[in-house]
């Protein structure tokens, strides 16, 4: 069964979703939780069976799909994708378990299960077209979730989300096709297998163009400044569950794709674009943090904070060394956990008051102490306090980029300041002070359903902050092989210099361990 575990992971939720049409309305929640739980356990099993010491792809599956055009159903998992897969299944479970939506729950749960399929598919795919299939397909359930259960501007928001990302990914598709064509020219065979693409060394000017094409697709998804404006709308209008999944998983597709495609395929271009992208990342960090500070709606604060954090992830990714890239991959998980939790928390108060305006609140700490505590913990995690999950990622990302540039990192480091500013300000507005609004006086504290979703996230946020090793180690091993690959492929002397050569260091490390 382990040979096909990835396929099972991908298609089990979809199949279950189909069968879900039959399940009666009042039992659908239980059904959804069951399916998501099974899926989650399967993904944990995947982790259990995963060999953390090996850096290559594991659980590979391959089946011809369109061999005439080099498209194969190719799956595999390495340390970089393993945890994001688990995060996806985890968040689906949490999302369904803590679902408070009452309108058309059945449609919602079926949609979520389909979404789960696409999410796992994206991270497990090793064939560019299969990747693209899931990548695009993931837009559809999300479109539905935002558009059907969202706020007053939901249609505008969902269409914007869809078309924006769709446009970007179509350009990316052209890039993929070009890449395949290039492979065809080099080898006489069509192939969309990423692993085979890795073996290609492209001329630098091709790299630049292809990098740009892929970049557009990824950047819109991430979303990077100035392509980020769909995000506040999407988050602002989406129902809680939509925001949670969007922030926790869907955004990670973009950053994951940078690590999976851009870096190893175009090492020279990555070095070439390193500083422009770092500049964008810095704009994302500071500018969006400022925009977040100006928000009046707590959900928008969290939404913009996502963009800000994604900036750090991008920065870490383009550090192009093991510390930075591992950090950014870890931060993807961390941000998933934290922003997912924050959106859940916003959902809690929205369910009670049907407003997200901070001016409507104030003094909630005394009315809802447990809520305030959990919110506080997650806020501190978001701010990047040591021993919370975010810190590990942010620290490593910034540390990594420091190797490349002192000044950029110094400016980007203001993330820890500006992040604190908007988060603390928002927290103060919501929780501190006296309860001025009559409606807030009788609010109920978080209930069991909500705790089911929140408590695991709190535990995770602290556990992985204190002891990130089980996650960081497999990530590190896979990242090391990516970096080594990049170094070996790099052609320009600058790229060779910027991307560390680990084989010397690795040998040294072994040497040290022997002693």
């Amino acid at each position, binding site marked *: 069964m382990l040979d096909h575990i990835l396929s099972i992971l991908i298609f089990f939720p979809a199949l279950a979703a189909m069968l879900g049409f039959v399940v009666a309305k009042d039992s659908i929640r239980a059904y959804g939780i069951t399916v998501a739980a099974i899926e989650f356990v399967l993904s944990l099993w995947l982790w259990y069976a995963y060999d953390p010491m090996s850096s290559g792809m594991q659980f590979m599956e391959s089946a011809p799909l369109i061999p005439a055009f080099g498209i194969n159903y190719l799956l595999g998992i390495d340390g970089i994708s393993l945890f994001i897969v688990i995060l996806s299944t985890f968040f689906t479970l949490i999302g369904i378990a803590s679902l408070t939506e009452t309108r058309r729950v059945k449609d919602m749960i079926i949609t979520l299960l389909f979404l789960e399929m696409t999410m796992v598919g994206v991270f497990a795919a090793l064939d560019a077209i299969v990747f693209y299939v899931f990548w695009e397909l993931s837009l559809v359930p999300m479109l539905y979730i935002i558009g059907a259960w969202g706020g007053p501007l939901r249609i505008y928001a969902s269409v914007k989300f869809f*078309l*924006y990302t769709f446009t970007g990914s179509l350009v990316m598709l052209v890039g993929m096709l070009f890449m395949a064509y290039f492979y065809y020219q080099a080898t006489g065979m069509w192939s969309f297998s990423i692993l085979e693409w890795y073996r290609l060394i492209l001329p630098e000017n091709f790299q630049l163009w292809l990098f740009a094409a892929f970049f557009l697709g990824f950047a819109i998804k991430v979303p990077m*400044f*100035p392509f*980020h*404006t*769909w995000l506040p709308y999407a988050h602002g209008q989406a129902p809680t569950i939509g925001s949670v999944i969007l922030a926790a998983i869907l955004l990670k597709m973009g950053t994951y794709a940078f690590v999976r495609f851009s870096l190893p395929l175009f090492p020279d271009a990555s070095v070439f674009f390193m500083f422009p992208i770092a500049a964008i990342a810095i704009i994302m960090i500071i*500018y969006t943090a*400022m*925009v977040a*500070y*100006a928000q009046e709606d707590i959900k928008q604060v969290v939404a913009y904070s996502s963009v800000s954090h994604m900036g750090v992830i991008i920065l870490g990714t383009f550090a192009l*060394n*093991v*510390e930075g890239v*591992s*950090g950014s991959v870890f931060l993807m998980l961390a941000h998933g956990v934290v922003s997912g939790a924050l959106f859940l928390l916003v959902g809690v108060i929205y369910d009670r008051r049907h407003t997200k305006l901070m001016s409507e609140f104030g*003094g909630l*700490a*005394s009315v809802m*102490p447990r809520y305030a*505590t959990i919110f506080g913990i997650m806020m*501190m995690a978001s701010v990047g*306090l*040591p*021993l919370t999950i975010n*810190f*590990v990622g942010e*620290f*490593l990302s*910034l*540390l990594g980029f*420091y190797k490349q540039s*002192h000044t950029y*990192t*110094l400016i980007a*480091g*203001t993330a*820890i*300041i500006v992040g*604190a*500013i908007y988060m*603390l*300000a928002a927290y*103060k507005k919501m*929780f*501190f*002070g006296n309860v001025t609004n009559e409606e807030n006086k009788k609010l109920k504290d978080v209930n069991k359903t909500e705790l089911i979703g929140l408590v695991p996230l709190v535990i995770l946020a602290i556990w992985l902050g*204190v*002891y*990130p*090793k089980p996650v*960081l*180690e497999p*990530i*590190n091993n896979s*990242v*090391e092989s990516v970096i080594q690959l990049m170094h070996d492929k790099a052609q320009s002397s600058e790229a060779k210099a910027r991307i560390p050569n680990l084989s010397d*260091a690795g040998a040294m*490390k072994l040497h040290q361990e022997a002693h």
Partner: protein
Amino acid sequence: MELYLYIALFAPLVGSLYAALFGASPKSYHTGLIASGLLFTSLVSSAILLSYVMGGHTVHVELMTWMATGDLYIPFGFVVDQVSVVMMMVVTIVSTVVHVYSIGYMDHDKGFNRFFSYLSAFVFSMMVLVMSDNFAGLFIGWEGVGLCSWLLIGFWYHKESATWAANEAFIMNRIADLGMLIGIFLVYWNIGSLQYDVVFAEIHNLDQKVITWIGIFLFIGAMGKSAQFPLHPWLADAMEGPTPVSALIHAATMVTAGVYLVIRANPIYSEIPDVGYFIASLGAFVAMFAATMALVNRDMKRIIAYSTLSQLGYMFVAAGLGAYWVALFHLMAHAFFKALLFLGAGNVMHAMSDELDPVKMGGLYKVMKGTAILMILASVALAGIWPFAGFFSKDKILEVAFSSEHYILWGTLWITAGLTAFYSFRLIMLAFFGEERYKQYGFHPHEAYRFMLVVMSPLALLAVIAGWFEHDFVRLVTTLLPGFEFHTHHVELMLIGVTSLIAVGGIVTAILMYRNGPLSTKWEEHFCYKVLINQYYIPKLYNEIFTKPYGALSRFAWKEIDIRIVDATVDMIANAIYKTGENTRDIQNGNLSTMLRWMVIGLVVLLALAVAFTVGYNAIGA
């Protein structure tokens, strides 16, 4: 010994978690008792470790890996050596006292359990800070104490001023933490490790420039935590927290973390005396600067806070000039008497229903004898009168300055010593002696619980005798810290005399000036008074040049840039496409004639293009 190390470290955490369990439930004494008990355990363990370390050993343990990726390896490692054990002792002693004291102080507060949870968490963070064997661990504690400070300053979260102060403290500290983080990055990329022992062993191999930068960035971190100019305003505002918090965090322990960092990183700073000199100068400046603000302030806690700031300046002078053990010594002594002073102020606050203006008090000596005596003791120690603790430690700092031939620094500190004595006794005089003005304001002061006074007594004792162990202390810490060569033996007595003179002078002046209560209000019109009471207008300035513009810029970024430029561009593209459709759909006007014409037009255009091409083609061909 490892066991004691772990007990010392984790007992406060256990206490914190225990109290947190009851965080939302109504007050229950057991949380306070158990938290205090666990802290006492921690104190005892620290004491055992102290005796062990005094025997010339150190304890070094590695609990587990924290982060490891690439070449980076950061463990949770803890070290108990001569420096950290001193810090541990200071922290545990003061915090045990403060914990027990708080049982009384927080008696009537709804958040009793929560308070102990935070307080113990703070002690844990502080222990991590001082015990860590690497910079990353230090940073954990560093941020941890920042968090607890935020929680405790904003403990009464319904008060706008408290939460504002909490956020201000957190954010200002964050600014400094960035510096520290950069310092850590520099260390890592130049040395490849963050372990103290590796770093300090390798540091001299680095380029002078790099060491300078490391020193500067680490010191920026220290500036934030120790509230050095220009990151100082948060400390005074932090007095919004409950008084035990001020005693523990904002006087005795957390704010000295910056000094601790410089002491701990002495191998780095020894390499860069220029930076050290800068630190010392800044320290001297802050000492004076803060003392002046304390002169006129009418808020008891703020006066003590400025005094703390001023004393931190002293410590930095010592540390900057390379007299690390002196800095540590003053740190320790200061912790005791300043905590005592704060706890005394807490008693007064309790008595006066949280009134802080000493002008509204007066003659409290009669009703609060115990507290008054304790506070006078602490103030004398602070003023540096023989044989109290402050005399030994502060005089040493002046001696260091003199000995290093930095006479301007010495002069500054000397004047400040006078100011210190003056404002301390101004406070004492206004609060405890003179006319009983509180009656006008309708207060009914009463003495604090007896056990609170009892629990303060160890601090009082230490404030008196701590200085007597100078030689043992020097022997202990100089095994790790470099010694300091004094070249002042010939003038030693004269220096002591001069310093004591100005201290006594300050006290006497204060007593004389305030023996009849506060000065006339005419004085309040004076320019100097206004500058000082407004803290040199620095908070206002910050508000004008940072806070407000940041808010305005943020709104501008959102409303103007994000919505009206970035987003509007996207929508404009979409709308342009849509509008094109709207405007050109009339091509399809449904009239067959038009449709036919379009076909013919298409044909004609193509024909024209064909002809044009052919003509061009033939022209080129010919």
